[in-house]
């Protein structure tokens, strides 16, 4: 313990003495670590936004999806007409009972259907998703205006609906005045508006599954209603057991139905699946090249100056320093230097990240999201790399230092 402190203390004193000489070579390291940290950070930011986009497509880890279809309909929901409303409601009952029984915190029955709505320029089709309040959390569905569906919407007489910007535009009224929409043969109350940019150019809507199934149009063959399925977001370690139990439970409640439960979030596609790896590797490769140049400068300066310090090492050896200690001391000088330089580089990165101009630039790449805090993983990576570069660069002068003989060093 004391050895370690003493060695670091020695290194620091050395750096203080040779400030000017070391400073120049460390500036390169600062720049390189700043570049490296920035590229890792950008990679991590991109990863977290891409993650959100993947999760909004396929659910978070672990998402279990239970689907049910009637064997009498030949397994194809579209072949012999959609399941009757009564059948779908029975499926919903079974699914909701299972969610209650296992106390699943986040779950939503979902169903899809195509119904007509009354727009400004006539009747138009719209894809309606039957979903429950949890769905917004499970799929990162942010509401730009108003709110998503909530539990109390189940008690409404007129069904609540969340619409997107495309549908609102088709209604031809200002957002403030649009309170209701004629949807699938019924009047629905608009409670919220979703706007995810490009994705919401075309009309789309979300209703509670039961509200959707009860729409007069929903029972016509033209509605192309999917039979309901259940999405449950469960802790990853419970995924396997949960899958088996949910499936058993729901199948038991639906005699004559075929029930299947699968894990459907993208992280279940494959253990090694990492869509961002190539991007990050490229960024890190570029930063490494800069870092290599910085390290080469550091080695050159260190090797030149070590020759002037041979006498010093001889003196230290005479007063009890072992070879190993001299090696570590010289290497630590380099490590302390690069870590300090790296820390400054990282600080510059974090400072730059906070600048309003940079924040603005970065948020353009995100779909209207808030920027998360500076990714700590990037900062830690930068620091570790700085230390490693210092150790590697320092081992060269350290080897020279221990090779000099004490008697030669203090002879004259």
């Amino acid at each position, binding site marked *: 313990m*004391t050895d370690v402190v003493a060695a670091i203390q020695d290194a620091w004193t050395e750096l203080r003495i040779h400030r000017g000489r070391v400073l120049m070579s460390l500036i390169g390291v600062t720049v390189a670590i700043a570049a490296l940290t920035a590229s890792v950070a950008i990679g991590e930011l991109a990863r977290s936004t891409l993650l959100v986009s993947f999760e909004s497509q396929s659910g978070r880890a672990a998402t279990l999806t239970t689907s049910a279809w009637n064997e009498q309909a030949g397994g194809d929901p579209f072949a012999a007409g959609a399941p009757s409303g009564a059948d779908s409601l029975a499926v919903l009952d079974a699914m909701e009972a299972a969610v209650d029984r296992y106390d699943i915190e986040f779950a939503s029955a979902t169903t899809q259907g195509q119904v007509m709505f009354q727009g400004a320029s006539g009747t138009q089709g719209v894809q309606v998703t039957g979903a429950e309040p949890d769905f917004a959390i499970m799929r990162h569905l942010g509401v730009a205006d108003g709110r998503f569906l909530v539990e109390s919407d189940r008690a409404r007489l007129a069904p609540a609906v969340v619409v997107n910007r495309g549908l609102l535009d088709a209604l031809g009224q200002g957002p403030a005045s649009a309170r209701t929409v004629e949807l699938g043969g019924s009047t629905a109350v608009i409670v919220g508006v979703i706007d995810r940019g490009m994705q919401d150019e075309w009309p789309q809507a979300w209703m509670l599954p039961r509200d959707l199934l009860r729409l007069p149009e929903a029972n016509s063959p033209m509605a192309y209603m999917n039979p309901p399925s259940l999405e449950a977001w469960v802790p990853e370690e419970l995924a396997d057991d949960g899958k088996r139990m949910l499936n058993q439970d729901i199948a038991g409640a639906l005699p004559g139905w075929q029930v299947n439960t699968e894990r459907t979030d993208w992280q279940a596609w494959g253990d090694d699946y990492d869509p961002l790896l190539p991007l990050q590797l490229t960024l890190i490769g570029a930063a490494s090249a800069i870092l290599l140049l910085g390290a080469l400068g550091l080695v050159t300066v260190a090797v030149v100056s070590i020759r002037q310090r041979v006498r010093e090492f001889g003196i230290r050896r005479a*007063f*009890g320093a072992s070879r190993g200690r001299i090696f570590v001391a010289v290497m630590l000088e380099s490590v302390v230097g690069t870590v300090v330089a790296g820390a400054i580089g990282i600080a510059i990165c974090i400072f730059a990240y906070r600048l309003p101009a940079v924040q603005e630039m970065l948020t353009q790449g995100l779909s209207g999201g808030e920027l998360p805090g500076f990714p700590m993983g990037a900062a830690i990576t930068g620091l570790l790399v700085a230390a490693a570069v210092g150790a590697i660069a320092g081992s060269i002068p350290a080897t020279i230092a221990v090779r000099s003989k004490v008697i030669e060093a203090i002879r004259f």
Partner: protein
Amino acid sequence: MPLLHLRGVTRQFATIDGPALQILKGVDLDVAAHDRVSIVGRSGSGKSTLLNILGLIDQPTTGIVELDGEPVALMGGRMRDRLRGATVGFVFQQFNLIEGLTAAENVAVPLHYGAGRRYWQRHRLASEMLERVGLSHRIDTKATNLSGGEQQRVAIARALVRSPRLILADEPTGALDIETGGRIMDLLDEVAADAGAALVTITHDVAVAARASRMLRIVDGRLEQTSAVAA
């Protein structure tokens, strides 16, 4: 048991062309605790070579060196380094302070390689040692800004800061004028006696050599007893 025990110590240096240089040809020497030994000899006779062997910096080509009865040749390098730091304090002719460090930091250097307790007290111990050699007003002065006499005082403080049992001084007054040299020798004798350490001094200077209780001369690679008059 003597502190240091040398029997039949030889040391030769290989040369690039021609035969190896035979510098020490069979040195026998015992240094007891509290001993005062001085070694004289012509330039190039091998005084520094012998001192390096006494201080475990160098190893003899043949012969036995024992410290506290332990054969040094059988020790590992790390062990030797550790023992050197704990047992020996060097004072060199060229002072050999580390440039860029202050007087106190120079004095504290040996404490970096010893026990943890002393490391943490290094500032206090170094200041006390500098006070002891009359340099309490120079504690934070850079080594390069000190006079020769002051630098040698710092070197003495550094040699003594770990309370060694053996002080090896290689021409400690060689770079000083006669008067300053005399005062440095007074100091060295005094602090060595106070600390109860053995003192081996190498010198050209007969007056310096005469201070010791035992005077030896290197002649043709061997040690012989001598008297002050003959030196």
